[in-house]
């Protein structure tokens, strides 16, 4: 792996703050629930049936954006936000992988101690 590639990965890693932390908030989870249908939403639309102010919603969207779960797209004068499941499925895939490794290791342990 070249030095350049290494540093670009490091930069990407740094830019992507922990996805779990970003999801550990009810408001942000409710925003995700709304954005899940893959339609881009404007901040006004997302603020509509929320008790929170436009500023608060914007702040939460920025947190989601910082970990890559949400992207903003500019249409004319306003920004619209859309959902990107990639970082979430990435982590789930990894968890599944580690989980499977444990299943196998514990199975070997079982054979080992029950022998």
């Amino acid at each position, binding site marked *: 792996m070249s030095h350049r590639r290494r540093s670009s*990965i490091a930069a*990407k*890693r740094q830019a*992507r703050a*922990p*996805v*779990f*932390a970003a*999801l*550990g908030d009810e408001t942000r989870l409710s925003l995700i629930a709304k954005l899940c249908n893959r339609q881009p939403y404007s901040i006004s639309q997302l603020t509509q049936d929320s008790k929170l102010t436009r500023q608060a919603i914007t702040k939460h969207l920025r947190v989601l954006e910082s*970990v*890559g779960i949400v992207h903003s797209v500019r249409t004319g004068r306003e920004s619209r936000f859309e959902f990107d499941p990639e*970082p*979430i499925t*990435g*982590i789930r*895939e*990894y*968890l599944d*992988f*580690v*989980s*499977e*490794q*444990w*299943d*196998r*290791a*514990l*199975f*070997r*342990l*079982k*054979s*080992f*101690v*029950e*022998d």
Partner: protein
Amino acid sequence: MNDRIEKRIALKAPVSRVWRALSDYREFGEWFRVKLDGPFVPGQVSRGRITYPGYEHVKWEAVVQKMDHERLFSFTWPHPKSFGRADIPLDYSGEPTTLVEFRLEKTASGTLLVLTESGFDKLPADRRLEAFRRNDGGWTEQMKNVENHVSKNHVAQTP
């Protein structure tokens, strides 16, 4: 979202037997498939090498946390982006770690072993399967071979 893995497995062996398989570094190495340099000592780094054919270059490095006799064995270990190559030794320092805990409970038929691995919330979002897949899918393939081998030899013992 779930940031931990939890497994419960009933073992038909006394707690003392299971404890030995976990806490004795040679026995641990047998089933985990790792050759460890020395005994586990709480607060100290445990080092060794994976003993899987083709994966001998992969370093094992963990920090032993607790060894609560016949009750709890725990360590933290790194989740590096890749496991490196034989010619490029890998430095795990600075890599995010997770906490692995083995809890033992005595049951009527033997031991209930509860394994948890937690702290996945600290891992970067890009910590994924590429590193393993790059190895020609060899790791996964090896795992399957072993599983087939073990389950074949294990059928007779399974109730």
